[in-house]
């Protein structure tokens, strides 16, 4: 999922300056899991905005806000409220914000949260970055652990000299990913291969990661494999 954190309310108010009638949109997926844009947070935001003197014209929490068609459909169901709206405040990752902008051509959209990273959830409230979507997955060479995502320097040839007792110099609360890679590779019997292949792919190919990314394909038709 995409991890997110709430923006400060003062920043939200500054963005919304000059816009009085606000429609709030959350997201039933990642932002709900991160407790930044679920039903509860949308309701809290409604209260806060009203306390600040804004009018909330409506709220919605689409299942997956980054799905443009679904989100547009949800907003069509609240056509009247949307018509009376000056601006949308979207409590989802940046893709959700732009998904709303895609279907709402004539109205401003503003983000209410910050997108953080592509994450795994270990348990509720424990969300960790594991992938930087580099477009050229290398975890197979590192015992299933990504050094691009988990080493601040994204090194491919092993650790720097800054780790201490297996902890990272940049954030001593976090494990040095190289200690984890070696530990896991030892358990999986891959240590020799890891040491041999470590960095053998050469310098990282960043051309594959040129933005904006685009993936266009022929969708499989329903009922057909």
């Amino acid at each position, binding site marked *: 999922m995409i991890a997110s954190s709430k923006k400060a309310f003062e920043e939200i108010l500054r963005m919304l300056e000059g816009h009085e009638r606000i429609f709030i949109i959350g997201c039933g997926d990642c932002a709900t899991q991160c407790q930044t844009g679920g039903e509860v947070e949308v309701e809290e935001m409604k209260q806060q905005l009203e306390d600040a003197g804004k009018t909330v014209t409506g709220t919605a929490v689409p299942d997956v806000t980054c799905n443009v068609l679904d989100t547009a459909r949800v907003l069509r169901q609240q056509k009247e409220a949307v018509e009376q709206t000056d601006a949308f405040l979207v409590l989802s990752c940046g893709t959700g914000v732009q998904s709303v902008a895609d279907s709402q051509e004539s109205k401003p959209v503003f983000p209410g949260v910050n997108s953080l990273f592509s994450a795994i959830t270990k348990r509720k409230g424990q969300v960790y970055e594991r992938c930087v979507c580099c477009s050229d997955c290398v975890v197979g060479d590192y015992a299933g652990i990504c050094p691009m995502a988990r080493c*601040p*320097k994204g*090194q491919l040839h*092993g650790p720097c*000299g800054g780790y201490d007792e297996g902890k990272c110099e940049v954030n001593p609360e976090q494990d040095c990913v190289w*200690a984890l890679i070696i530990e896991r590779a030892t358990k999986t019997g891959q240590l020799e291969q890891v040491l041999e292949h*470590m960095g053998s792919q050469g310098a990282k190919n960043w051309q594959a990661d040129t933005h904006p990314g685009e993936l266009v394909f022929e969708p499989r038709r329903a009922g057909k494999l």
Partner: protein
Amino acid sequence: MPVGMREAIDSGQFIITGEVAPPKGCHLEHMVEEAEFYRGRVAGINVTDIQSSVMRASSLVGCLKLKEAGLPPVLQMVCRDRNRLALQSELLSACALGITDVLCLTGDYTTLGDHPQAKPVFDLDSVSLLKAARRLMEGRDMAYYKNARTGEIVDGEALDGAPPSFCLGCVVNPGAVPMEPQIYKLLKKIEAGAEFCQTQAVYDPALFEEFMTRLGDVPIPILAGIVVLKSPMMAKYMNANVAGVKVPDWMIAELEDKETRVAKSIEMHAKLVQDLKPMCQGVHMMPLGWDKHVPAILDLAGL
């Protein structure tokens, strides 16, 4: 002492190197004055590259100033601030200036310095930088692209004229816990073309001996790092903040008395150099401003 890393390595003698840092400013005279203390005593003088991620004048310009003064510079290059285009370009530029001793490092992370909001680059790391420099020495660069006309993959463009010649160095932290990953990485660096290795500060000869034993025979000289302790405060700071560095209590105690501090420091570090000498092929002096005391340390150590 032979001058230049290649000559020093080929001589088979015990190698001594020093280190200076360019200032946060455009006047490098003081840096050159500090380097003067090394004249005739060292094979090379490292010029740090925006060390600790604290903004300052560049290593290349510092090296040029040393070269103009007739001192042997070692260009430190980190991967934090430049991508592969800029790093290769700087390697060529250095060679054009006659600066061919190069220490390749990954570099400290940006958030540890005084511009924590800067974008970290790390396009290459120490190993891929060594490989890139090696490739330049073979007369080709890291270019890798598909030729639009022929559809063929171009793997390395030829350099104009005779290729550069570098003597490449690397670093290791012998005190890092666990030790094994440091050894794995150092072997990668040697495989990538490092010809000498300078270590992080060492204060515990027994720990260093363990490191050298576990490392085993390697074909390049290992230069033990000597960071000259100037005060108990500095020693305590290093213990708290520098990974893998443990200054023993007795050394800190020796520095307590302000009156005798300089003499004690010289004595302690000379002893340290003597203790380390049988285990390694050289020492890398990092006096952090106390450059003027390095000759006394070396004299007392019999070097």
